[in-house]
């Protein structure tokens, strides 16, 4: 018994000592608070890959030029397991332990909202690439985001569907336990009914966590005879929903949101998704310039077209680096440097990201355009329309 005790103590001690100590100077340390395990490991993976690529780029050129000196980048990836309490601990750890200058992530709002509080409280700049919940940045001068908000994206979808499908009756199927999906669904419904009269959303159905069968909801929706179905859902669920809807005899169009924008959508969904539309941050097919370069390099390196999380992480990280350069010089005093970076972030006039040009409003939310893309016969996301605020 006592042996086991001491063995455990020993194990814990070794592990504690194994936690890396402080490294040398001339390094810029940035933390990543991302879900590498848990519900959405793919999101974490995309973020990590995009960041790795960026780091290799810059370190390959000898580092980031800040003022007169070059600094090497060190990215610290911490797994928040898709859990709120883990995201908080990770944020604390990155701030206190690793003394990072800024934090990228967390991606989903469940983690980003509480982690944002920690970052704001400890005066460390944080930028969430993907979170769409207004609470993440609200009244938090130190917290930013790279994605546009639901209240902007909802009306984009409404206007587009009314114009493109000549639709008057809409149906919505959303994920109840996913705050992104639920929030967007509600905004869409309000806006649609404002423009088309009460009761013009003929079916407003939901499903639960990790559901795979949507036949009952779709049966109800199809029976209500809408002109199209709005699906503000993650791409993996979209693939199942679209397929099952076709099995149940649905022949009308679907309209989606930015959560569709994953490289995996077409591998998972196949021909069922061809011809559908969704609003997103950028159109991969037909992209030009830096966007195309990013897509091609990412695909060459990791074997698939980067999804929106990858693109947004790329932009978010570059935003932070831009702010560091704008700050002019690093003093070595973490607190002062963080302050300088935050101020520089807030003052960015215009940033040409691969997901579009953006700058921050006073809440730290980006002002940027949304695009609507169509999925063509080759499964590419083709630019159809751009909507700017």
């Amino acid at each position, binding site marked *: 018994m006592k042996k086991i005790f001491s063995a455990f103590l020993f194990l814990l001690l070794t592990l504690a000592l194994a936690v890396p100590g402080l490294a040398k100077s001339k390094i810029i340390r940035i933390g990543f608070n991302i879900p590498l395990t848990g519900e959405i490991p793919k999101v974490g993976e995309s973020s990590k890959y995009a960041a790795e690529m960026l780091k290799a780029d810059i370190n390959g050129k000898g580092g980031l030029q800040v003022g007169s000196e070059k600094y090497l980048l060190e990215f610290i990836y911490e797994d928040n397991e898709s*859990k*709120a*309490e883990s995201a908080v*601990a*990770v944020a*604390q*750890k990155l701030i206190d332990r690793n003394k990072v200058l800024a934090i990228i992530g967390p991606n989903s709002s*469940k983690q980003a909202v*509480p982690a944002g509080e920690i970052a704001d409280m400890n005066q460390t700049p944080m930028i969430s690439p993907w979170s769409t919940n207004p609470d993440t940045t609200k009244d938090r001068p130190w917290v930013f985001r790279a994605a546009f908000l639901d209240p902007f994206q909802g009306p984009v979808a409404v206007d587009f569907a009314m114009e493109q499908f000549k639709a008057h009756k809409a149906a919505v199927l959303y994920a109840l*336990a996913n705050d992104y999906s639920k929030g967007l669904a509600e905004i869409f419904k309000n806006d649609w009914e404002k423009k088309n009269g009460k009761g013009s959303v003929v079916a407003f159905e939901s499903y639960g966590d990790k559901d795979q069968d949507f036949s009952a909801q779709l049966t109800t929706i199809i029976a209500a005879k809408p002109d199209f179905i709005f699906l503000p859902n993650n791409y993996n669920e979209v693939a199942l929903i679209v397929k099952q809807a076709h099995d149940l005899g649905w022949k009308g169009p679907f309209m989606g949101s930015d959560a569709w924008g994953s490289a995996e959508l077409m591998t998972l969904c196949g021909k069922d998704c061809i011809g559908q539309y969704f609003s997103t941050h950028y159109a991969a097919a037909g992209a030009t310039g830096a966007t195309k370069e990013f897509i091609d390099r990412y695909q060459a390196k990791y074997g698939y077209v980067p999804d929106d999380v990858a693109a947004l992480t790329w932009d978010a990280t570059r935003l932070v680096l831009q702010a560091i350069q704008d700050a002019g010089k690093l003093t070595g005093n973490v607190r002062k440097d963080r302050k300088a970076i935050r101020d520089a972030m807030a003052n960015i006039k215009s940033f040409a990201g691969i997901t579009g040009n953006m700058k921050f409003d006073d809440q730290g939310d980006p002002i940027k355009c949304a695009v609507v893309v169509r999925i063509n016969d080759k499964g590419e996301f083709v630019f159809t329309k751009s909507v700017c605020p």
Partner: protein
Amino acid sequence: MKQKLAVPVLLFALLAVVMTLVQFEVIDLYIQTIILFIGINIIISSSLNLVNGHMGEFSCGHAGFIAVGAYVSSVLSVALFAQDRIFGAPLLPPQYTVYAFPVILVIGGLAAAFAGLLVALPSFRTRGDYLAIITIAANYIIITVIINIDKIGGARGFMGMKRVVFAMEDTAAIPWMVLWVFLFTILSIIAIRRFVSSTYGKGIIAIQQDEVAAEIMSVNTNKMKLIAFMLSSGLAGIAGGLYAHVIGYVNPKSFDILKSTEALVMVYLGGMGSITGSILSAVLFTLLLELLRPLQIIKWIVIPLLLIILMQFRPEGIMGNRELVDIFPKLKKFYRFK
């Protein structure tokens, strides 16, 4: 007599040391957060142990009660003390937070205890695996109810508790959450210990070992089950309230069945019916989760593997159903008369 004061003195000294270290920022916020999680996990595991260990039921829905406590206390404290979009201006001036906070936590615990009825009442008629299902269903039901109440954020979660914590810190600049977590952890342990070491509380151990014999030896088994379930879920509710205020944000998804399985793991890792086992396993489990974080995905292979191996060597958990004093009898003199 001096020796019998050793445990309280030791605890007090520990609290004083931790508080001082935190106050003068010797230990950083990260360590502080982990210490707080350890305390909360101790309450969670030892309260579940009351039902799963001492009483021998198989409750798999503990997270549901944690959720009830977390939400009730959060809504109360935000409504009373924070400027909020939903509840408007604070109803009470901020200097009352310090006094009101423990009361709010206890109210959260009471609410969770009432939610415990959802499980306690069916337990009169069913046992074992059938009851396990009821607890899982209760967990799902509680989460779905929370998701469907838009007023408290639904799936978006609920926040604003940090402002209440700040209000406490504005009143007196000490690390209040450390104090509260420490205090409630100790109180929970004392409550559970007093309960199971009394002749009255031993009734639930009798139920575990032979319900028929318990009933015939004048144990009102239904009443005992009711009390045990309500005590267990009530303490879980308090843990939930603390959790909500430490994190500053609650989301229904944080209390799903996975959280319940974490609590289960802690109970069986420590040993069924051993309070010290539960404490030890909560500490170990929390530390392991943190220390192995650099392993990323591998962590969630290593931890289950460690547990499986541990169970092969100690198929009754770290402590079995023994307490620390059973292993080190010399410690006995530090305890009061049972």
